[in-house]
């Protein structure tokens, strides 16, 4: 006599799908945060006519403590030109924009070497500013 095998159902519980998606989302958010500079503190200078930046490859921040960051990571100003050259590579002239987020009270001593480094690396400078209030 043949005894029939009992078949076990092995399906993924559909209730866990939400949790899996949630964990995946957190994982990708943490990955994205590594290149983000939203955690840095700086106050923009103001100007009347502003343009929206597009196709930017990198962002350089000089924060309230006059420290320089490239894509959210601290960098010495002496190393900035080389790092930017690596980032920009052989990109087209329209896609070589570098965002410059400089704290409004930073002095020439801090921001002029940064502008010089962007210029030497062949980047197109886009100063990030806020709308001037009248």
């Amino acid at each position, binding site marked *: 006599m043949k005894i029939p095998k009992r078949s076990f159902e092995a399906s993924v519980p559909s209730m866990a*799908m*939400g949790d899996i998606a949630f964990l995946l989302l957190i994982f990708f958010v943490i990955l994205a945060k590594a290149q983000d500079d939203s955690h840095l503190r700086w106050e923009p200078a103001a*100007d009347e006519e502003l343009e*929206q930046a597009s196709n930017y490859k990198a962002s350089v921040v000089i924060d309230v403590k006059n420290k320089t960051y490239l894509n959210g990571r601290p960098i010495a100003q002496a190393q900035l030109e080389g790092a930017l050259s690596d980032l920009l590579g052989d990109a087209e002239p329209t896609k070589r924009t570098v965002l410059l987020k400089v704290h409004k009270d930073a002095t*020439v*001593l801090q921001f002029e070497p940064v502008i010089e480094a962007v210029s*030497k690396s062949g980047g197109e400078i886009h100063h990030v500013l806020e709308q001037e209030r009248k």
Partner: protein
Amino acid sequence: MKLPRNKLLAEPPAGASSDIAFILIVFFLVCASVQPEQGRPQEIPKTEEEPDKQEKNKNPEVELTRTVVILNGDPLTDKSFASRLNGLLAGKRNTEDKVVMLKSRKDVSYERWIEFTGLIEKAGGIVTLQLEEEQVQVVN
């Protein structure tokens, strides 16, 4: 006689709560990631080791300090600077003639620098930074 009302249980299905949470997270992430990247593009000519002497003579030179702005050696108030520069650049059609040499003192703030480079660009000028070369002195 009072008739008892039928109590209807209207609870959202528990299975959908994770989907609601997911949609909420995506919504807040999108809201948080939209950072304003508005500003002003600036074209700065590449640095030259030694500026052409002829060019140096005919292009306007602006020296920016914390309190005053000096145009071709004349100290000006912030208000009169724009009109004087407009007058100097008016009628100049060649790109080389529109170059304005900007020298800034070390203590000038970014806010002030942005204001004056904006005025130069509005007048039709092309900002060229005149950087101070570092001098290394050996002391015996």
